[in-house]
């Protein structure tokens, strides 16, 4: 079969971060195939694709499209050679309509003046031709995420792309939307398009791809036909060692209720209802997982529980005492720990050093505080102790933390939050963006805390993570608990339906 794309000897070194993102990478894709590009975060797959799309200039290497050497300096060049990219974070203008978004930069016009009717007609035809129905006049900001992604795909198709690069396309979708996307990708491949599918979810590779290329540490560690490989083998190639795909944990020993939310309602920053009448309990010694597509009220619920946002209604109780209107500090004193979603801006202060970051939640304690002055020596002792207990290898007591890897940053957060032996831990997306090794560490730490007797509220959009860690799973949809499932017996499809808003009693989807 003919090669649609060939990249040879691609190298890229980022001086500012001292990272060799791509090191002599060879990458070849056959025409008409779905080719998965997998690797951990930081393996270099995004850099490689950014080079292909003209967003990053390589230090060395050449690119051939349909056997012809090409120079790609800017996205325009890539588009001209038939390469289209659907970015992980959509590049859409919220106030524009679907047709305006698809035709942006190539609007039909009469002497520079817009012709909206013609524009809508072109988009309707395009959508029909590819079997991807859209309403050309709908505003982007009113569309669900799956639909916005469809707009991005149509945008690329309208630009006559023959090679489509999809960057982590499933990260923001419900399982049903994922299934729909898989169908679309297969159809495109059958219609003769070449699809490069970037992901780190190996099950998706098996479901959709013909061939797969694995990257690790900036190198291509192998390309295989999907039919001739297995998920464990791919995982081994990706990480470079055996991976525990399951978390080992003892059966739960639930104790007394450590946290209770009763009829809680919260509004978001714009004043719209984000959480509506939610009630649940977390007991000592259990992990309660909150599953759901991101943006269904999880963020606001966590903010309400941790004291970052006021409740609009309902009550909270920590260790059987009312906590509804307690401040963040009072809640922490009552046994709360919080591993926030955004470790860089909320979890840590990158401007200050390790010691200060570790005591920021307990600097008022006599141990660190003498009449308003910080006791540097006991801070240092505490830092040394936390580094040892949580094996934060790269951290130096008194040293800066801004250059630590994501995994080590998260270890600092977890070290600080778990060092005080809290009774109730809120962990929001605790492994987002981490490599497999760090994910294992985070999971181990949470399970250890549970076995020690802490109650844990785990919020994650990664269904696999929820299922692996939780003792009970609540599914959130549009600010409400759509249903509770037992992770030991629930299927991914069952949870997926709840995530998409189906009622737990009915089995048929209500789409």
């Amino acid at each position: 079969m003919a090669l649609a794309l060939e990249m040879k000897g691609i190298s890229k070194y980022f001086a500012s971060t001292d990272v060799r993102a791509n090191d002599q990478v060879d990458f070849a894709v056959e025409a008409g195939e779905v080719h998965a590009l997998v690797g951990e975060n930081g393996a270099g797959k995004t850099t490689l694709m950014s080079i292909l799309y003209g967003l990053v200039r390589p230090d060395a290497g050449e690119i051939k499209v349909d056997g012809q050497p090409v120079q790609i300096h800017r996205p325009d060049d890539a588009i001209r050679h038939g390469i289209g990219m659907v970015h992980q974070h959509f590049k859409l203008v919220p106030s524009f309509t679907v047709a305006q978004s698809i035709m942006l930069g190539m609007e039909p016009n009469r002497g520079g003046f817009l012709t909206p009717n013609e524009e809508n007609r072109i988009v309707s035809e395009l959508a029909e031709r590819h079997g991807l129905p859209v309403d050309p006049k709908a505003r982007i900001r009113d569309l669900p995420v799956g639909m916005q992604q469809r707009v991005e795909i149509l945008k690329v198709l309208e630009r006559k792309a023959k090679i489509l690069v999809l960057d982590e396309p499933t990260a923001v979708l419900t399982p049903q939307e994922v299934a729909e996307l898989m169908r679309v990708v297969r159809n495109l491949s059958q219609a003769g398009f070449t699809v490069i599918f970037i992901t780190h979810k190996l099950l998706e590779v098996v479901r959709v791809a013909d061939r797969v290329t694995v990257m690790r540490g900036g190198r291509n560690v192998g390309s295989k036909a999907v039919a001739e490989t297995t998920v464990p083998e791919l995982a081994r190639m990706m990480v470079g060692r055996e991976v525990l795909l399951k978390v080992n944990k003892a059966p739960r020993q639930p104790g007394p209720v450590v946290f209770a939310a009763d009829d809680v309602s919260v509004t978001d920053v714009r004043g719209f209802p984000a959480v509506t009448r939610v009630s649940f309990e977390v007991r000592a010694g259990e992990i309660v997982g909150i599953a759901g597509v991101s943006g269904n009220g999880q963020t606001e619920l966590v903010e309400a529980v941790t004291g970052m946002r006021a409740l609009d209604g309902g009550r909270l109780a920590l260790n059987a005492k009312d906590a509804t209107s307690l401040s963040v500090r009072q809640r922490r004193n009552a046994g709360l720990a919080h591993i926030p979603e955004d470790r860089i801006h909320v979890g840590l202060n990158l401007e200050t050093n390790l010691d200060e970051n570790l005591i920021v939640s307990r600097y008022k304690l006599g141990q660190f505080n003498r009449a308003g002055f910080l006791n540097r020596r006991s801070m240092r002792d505490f830092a040394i102790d936390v580094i040892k207990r949580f094996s934060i290898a790269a951290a130096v007591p008194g040293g800066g933390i801004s250059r630590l890897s994501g995994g080590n940053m998260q270890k600092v957060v977890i070290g600080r939050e778990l060092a005080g032996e809290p009774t109730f831990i809120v962990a929001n997306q605790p492994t987002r963006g981490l490599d497999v090794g760090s994910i294992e560490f985070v999971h181990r730490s949470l399970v250890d805390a549970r076995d020690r007797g802490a109650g844990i509220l785990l919020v994650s959009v990664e269904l696999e993570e929820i299922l692996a860690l939780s003792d009970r799973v609540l599914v959130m949809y549009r600010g409400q608990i759509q249903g509770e499932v037992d992770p030991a017996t629930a299927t991914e499809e069952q949870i997926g339906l709840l995530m998409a808003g189906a009622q737990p009693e009915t089995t048929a989807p209500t789409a």
Partner: protein
Amino acid sequence: MEGFFSVFTIELFNSGIRLATPILLAALGGALCNKAGVLNLALESKMLLGAFLGIVAAYYFGNTYLGILVAVIAGGLLGWLFAFLYHRYQVDLVILAIALNLIILELTVYIMRVLFGQTGSWSDPSIVRVPDIHIPIIQDIPVIGGLLSGYNFFVYLSWAIAITLYVVLYHTTFGRHIRAVGENKEAAETVGINARRIQTLALVLSGMLAALGGAFLSVGHLKLFTRNMSNGRGWTAIAAALFGLNHPIGTFFASLFFGFADAFSVRIQNVTDLPPNLVEILPNFATVLVLVLIALRETVTRSMARSRSRAQIRAAADEKPGPA
């Protein structure tokens, strides 16, 4: 009280329109920049520079229109310098604007002293003010003629620019690209739109418009230059663009509002015994009021959404337990 109401005359309308013109010209530039996603807080200094260069160049060339041209070109160059420093060196636009506002204020006074030996104000008998245009037919219509005819070309040009800007922004491909850059720069860049060029152009055009507004002050409205002649109109223009929601037509009406507030405060000094200093702050007070209104609009939208949400929660509550 008769004296009080006597201020509402055709003359008040005329002077409101005249005073609105420099604000409108600069505000259109500000709105364009906001639409393109570049904050332009240097309208004040670009206006002052336009006022100064307009009259100085008119004096040396012996031609008022050449003077205006020089002012406009200088405003454009200043806008380009802004864009260059921003894009090449990532200079913070707010800091840059503050620095420029301070520099131009002192620089114009300095040059005025070096050239003409004056520090307060300067004029020369040879300078000719831009003449008023009396539109045939329209000027003979009662009332309407008095309202619409008899201004100089700056006024009519500013109206034409407002309409043109509206058409360009909302009915041309180029305008759509400007709005895309302002709302999501990355989205525009990934489809091959040159965001840097669009933002540069917006800054250049807004510099030209602000300078044109400044030139109106020195050779269109009066024929002299005074220290700090723009006197905060550049800042009022920013408020007008915000008040007009960065829409050219909205900005037009917002600028009229500020112009009339200005005219009103001038008139009222002639007919009342109120202390002049108190009356002079009226337009500034109006500006603050408008900014508060803009902020309130946000708060009201939010609290309305909030009460809707409460109603929904109540409705959900009534639904959920069912008739038990």
